[in-house]
């Protein structure tokens, strides 16, 4: 039923013109994200994951297709205030402190004065950064910066979180902390849509996965079903077979 889908992607395509001709970055993507689930979009580099996310976020205009959020069509260029977003390779403003940055994002998300302060501390505590509110962002490690990024994505209490490679470049401890935060969000009933090519975290986190190869969606469903499809217990092996099958 339409009410259960927080986001519906219908026939979404994106083509670019380049010197080598027309490049189809995304081909006829059809996908629904159900409320309360964690959906991971998997794919090798250049598969079209970031293009898909940028289309959902309205930063790119689709060549064809449309996106519905809570049943209403999303327009290109409009802000998505009910969607929290963490882009790939995100680095927050280095001239602000941790709390200033999150407070700034809470202000943009519509929180008022006292509420903003309270919410900032709540978010910092949630991502384990409440011990460093006064630290300048330029002095943070990459993992800490990513946690600040995650905190800003939660500002405004969004219904859906879209995270593009949230653990890329992090050490195992940093990755573990981010995954714990995401599981915590899921427990709060939030819907999470994220892109990754790190299979272990996808397996640990996701209710369903989508496999995107060369701009086309090859599979959508539970991780177990995907492994059964390739008759293996190893997600990495199944993923490799899917990608190589496409390549051959």
């Amino acid at each position: 039923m339409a009410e259960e889908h927080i986001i519906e992607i219908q026939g979404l395509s994106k083509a670019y013109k380049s010197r080598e001709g027309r490049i189809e970055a995304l081909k006829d993507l059809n996908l629904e994200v159900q409320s309360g689930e964690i959906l991971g979009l998997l794919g090798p580099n250049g598969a079209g994951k970031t293009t898909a996310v940028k289309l959902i976020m309205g930063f790119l205009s689709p060549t064809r297709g449309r996106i519905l959020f809570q049943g209403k069509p999303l327009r290109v260029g409009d802000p998505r205030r009910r969607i929290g977003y963490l882009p790939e390779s995100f680095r927050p403003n280095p001239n602000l402190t941790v709390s200033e940055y999150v407070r700034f994002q809470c202000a943009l998300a519509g929180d008022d004065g006292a509420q903003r302060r309270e919410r900032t501390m709540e978010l910092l505590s949630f991502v384990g950064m409440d011990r460093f509110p006064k630290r300048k962002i330029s002095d943070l490690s990459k993992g800490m910066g990513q946690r600040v990024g995650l905190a800003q994505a939660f500002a405004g209490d969004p219904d859906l979180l879209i995270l593009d490679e949230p653990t890329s470049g992090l050490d195992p401890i940093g990755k573990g902390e981010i995954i714990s935060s995401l599981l915590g969000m899921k427990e709060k009933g939030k819907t999470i849509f994220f892109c990754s090519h790190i299979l272990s975290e996808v397996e640990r986190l996701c209710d369903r996965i989508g496999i995107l190869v060369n701009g086309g969606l090859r599979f959508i469903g539970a991780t177990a079903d995907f492994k059964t499809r390739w008759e293996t217990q190893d997600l990495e092996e199944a993923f490799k077979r899917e990608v190589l099958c496409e390549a051959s």
Partner: protein
Amino acid sequence: MRGVLTISFVTWRESIRSKLFAGLLLFLAVILAFSLYISSLSLGEVARYIQNTGLLGLSIVCLAVAILFGLFSLYQEKDRNELYVLLNRVPRSSYLIGRFLGTSYIIVLFSLFAGAGVFFLTWIFGHKIVFGLLWAVYWSVLEFSLLTAIGVLFFAMGVGFTLNSLLVLCTFILGHSMTEAMQSFIGLGRYGSKTYLFLVKAITVVFPNFDLFDFRLAILHDEALVWGKVLLSSGYWLLYLVAVLAAASAVMNRRDT
């Protein structure tokens, strides 16, 4: 509106904390000190030399603010992918106007510092109180905020930072040659058609005419301000600014980011 003010406030905050801000303040202090040195070499023209060099310093510093704070920070924000986070929360027009406003606050601050510096040096060492210097601050804010808006328009059009800086610099130089260019072209077309003259005048209005904000000579020669000209220049600035920012918003709304 709230988004615009929040972004402008953060632009202000991050700017005053950057090392560049301190560097420009130091540069301004050096220029003011240099103006004193130059004036000491003059023969009885101390006040004029201080004003001339000091106002030149004000222009250089405000040009640097427009390019380095107004534009470079936009490109840095894009490189850090922070632009996408902001555009997820506020409309593109609010983002551009917020950034523009934040940079304008810094231009106001530097213009005030420079104007006050020149005013006091002229008073103390030149034994002359020149209230016209307050107007120099006003004109400087109009001129360099408009230049920042033009840079923001180029950013919205997807022009890269280096080319944008060059275009802004060219706009600044050409914008200060407008009156002269108009006179030359009108001279050339003295025996030409009315359409030719209309086109020449139209170009000098459509292309930013910074000569309308150049009151330095009037200040240096202690000339009284003509209020009609002040109103005309301020109105031109307002119309031009609104048109440039509206164009920047419209272009950015249509482009893939």
